């Protein structure tokens, strides 16, 4: 009964209920969008996005307008800026990303330093405050979630073709640039709602770690998304419990749980884990037939 109480007691607290719901929503969203970020090798761009939306959030905070709008505006501006700046062939795309995201982040720091409660506000944006989310925040995350799920589901075949073989998608006459920008807009929306929970610095982990974990467990796109979403949601819930009972920072605890999931998969994934591969190498005859042919 003690174990059941330990699980149920925190759920009677309103702020923890909201925190749990928010953690599950963000885990699912980051897992799904993160799958594309990982498969298209956009980890650096994901990090850039997390930093680029920062000044937008600060400006929205200063002007008392919607944080989502401010962040989204800066996310899109930075995405377009990266495309424009890297038109100059002496500036590679990753240099352009590096220049613009740190530049945007510095703008955010300069702006926020003009506020008197500077240190506390900066810390809450950098590290997140999932236990401070309001019912309105949760509603916003739900709305973003519905939009992202609908877009990923409705444009599944186009997004997977453009991610697998961009040239072919282009040759077929699909609007590849619009699809790329659409994916970036979805990414920036997810990043913005996640920043409230886990902060600018840790949001990258929520995008990458669950999807990279799923990548070790399956060879199909939709199962990768489902597993990544499940790992993200589980990490959110387990991390919040850990944070409640050990009295440590919630964002950090969530990310640490996700990191633990990743290393479990890295070691023990049946086909691609370290242990599995070692076993197969030492017992080639036996396991080869059982697991199936491998290259």
């Amino acid at each position, binding site marked *: 009964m003690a174990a059941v109480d330990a699980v149920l007691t925190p759920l009677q607290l309103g702020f923890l209920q909201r925190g749990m719901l928010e953690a599950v929503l963000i885990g699912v969203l980051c897992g799904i969008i993160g799958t594309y970020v990982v498969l298209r090798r956009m980890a650096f761009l994901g990090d850039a996005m997390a930093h680029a939306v920062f000044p937008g959030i600060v400006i929205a905070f200063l002007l008392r307008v919607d944080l989502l709008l401010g962040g989204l505006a800066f996310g899109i501006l930075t995405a377009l800026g990266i495309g424009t700046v890297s038109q100059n062939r002496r500036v590679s795309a990753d240099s352009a990303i590096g220049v613009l995201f740190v530049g945007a982040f510095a703008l955010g720091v300069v702006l926020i330093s003009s506020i008197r409660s500077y240190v506390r506000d900066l810390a809450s944006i950098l590290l997140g405050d999932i236990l401070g989310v309001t019912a309105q925040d949760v509603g916003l995350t739900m709305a973003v979630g519905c939009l992202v799920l609908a877009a990923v589901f409705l444009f599944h075949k*186009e997004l997977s073709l453009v991610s697998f073989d961009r040239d072919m998608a*282009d040759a*077929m006459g699909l609007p590849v640039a619009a699809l790329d920008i659409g994916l970036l807009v979805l990414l920036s929306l997810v990043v913005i709602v996640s920043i409230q929970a886990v902060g600018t610095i840790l949001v990258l982990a929520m995008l990458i770690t669950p999807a990279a974990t799923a*990548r070790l467990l*399956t060879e*199909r796109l939709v199962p990768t998304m489902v597993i990544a979403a499940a790992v993200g949601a589980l990490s959110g819930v387990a991390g919040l419990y850990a944070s409640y009972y050990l009295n440590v920072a919630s964002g950090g605890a969530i990310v640490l749980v996700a990191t633990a999931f990743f290393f479990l998969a890295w070691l023990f994934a049946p086909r691609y884990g370290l242990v599995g591969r070692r076993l197969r190498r030492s017992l080639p005859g036996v396991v080869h037939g059982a697991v199936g042919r491998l290259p």
Partner: protein
Amino acid sequence: MAELSFLSSRPRGPAVEFSDVAVAYNDYVAVQDVTAALHPGTIVGLLGPNGAGKTTLLRALVGVLPVAHGTIRIHDTAPREAWHHLSYLPQQEEVNWDFPVSVFDVALMGRVRALGWLSLPRAEDRRRAERALGRVGMEDFAARQVGQLSRGQRQRVLLARALVQDGDVVILDEPLAGVDTTTQEAVIGLLHELRDQGALVLMSTHDLAVAADVCDQLLCLNRRLIASGPTRTVFVPDVLRATYGSTLAIFSEGVAIHDGRR
């Protein structure tokens, strides 16, 4: 066969027309002075050394690159409006092979544009993908992740996807580069089938022996069009020397290219 639906309305004129075409990347003109008309029911080989502009010209033809000068027409329409005429095999290096899709998924991707937005593949689309995999001998691999395949097998999967596109202008970028003998034979067999069904097949290749053997016509390219016409008139030492420069050695029994790779 449902795949041959284009036969009933086969247009009469040239399938592809290049008129004084130049293609450039930024300020660098990769290829220019290309004028040629290619007709249905032929296999056309695109020859030239590395850096001659073969891939560039093919990418302009499928509408991925804009032309800097001149026009390209596919059945008298602009490349970007002619997607339904095209079957395309890009080079393998452009493809993200780690992407978690199966062989069957990739074949089915040939239907993405024909299906249109917001619609899911139906039983008929799945049958097309299965048939195409059968034609390239990959039906037993349908459930495999594409990244686990050999280079030759990957080539056959991409070819199956091109077949699923069901175009009558079949554009193949180096279909025989680095593939095993089984794949080479499968590809060449398919080229003949497609030609006999009335398609225009345009393929770039490094392999002069295959080009001489398989192609009805040749386009010889070296940053500009050097020669074009029936294989027997174009495949002669003078033209080949003009195309490949001093990298070409001509022996009594055949031809070899020295481009530093072999």
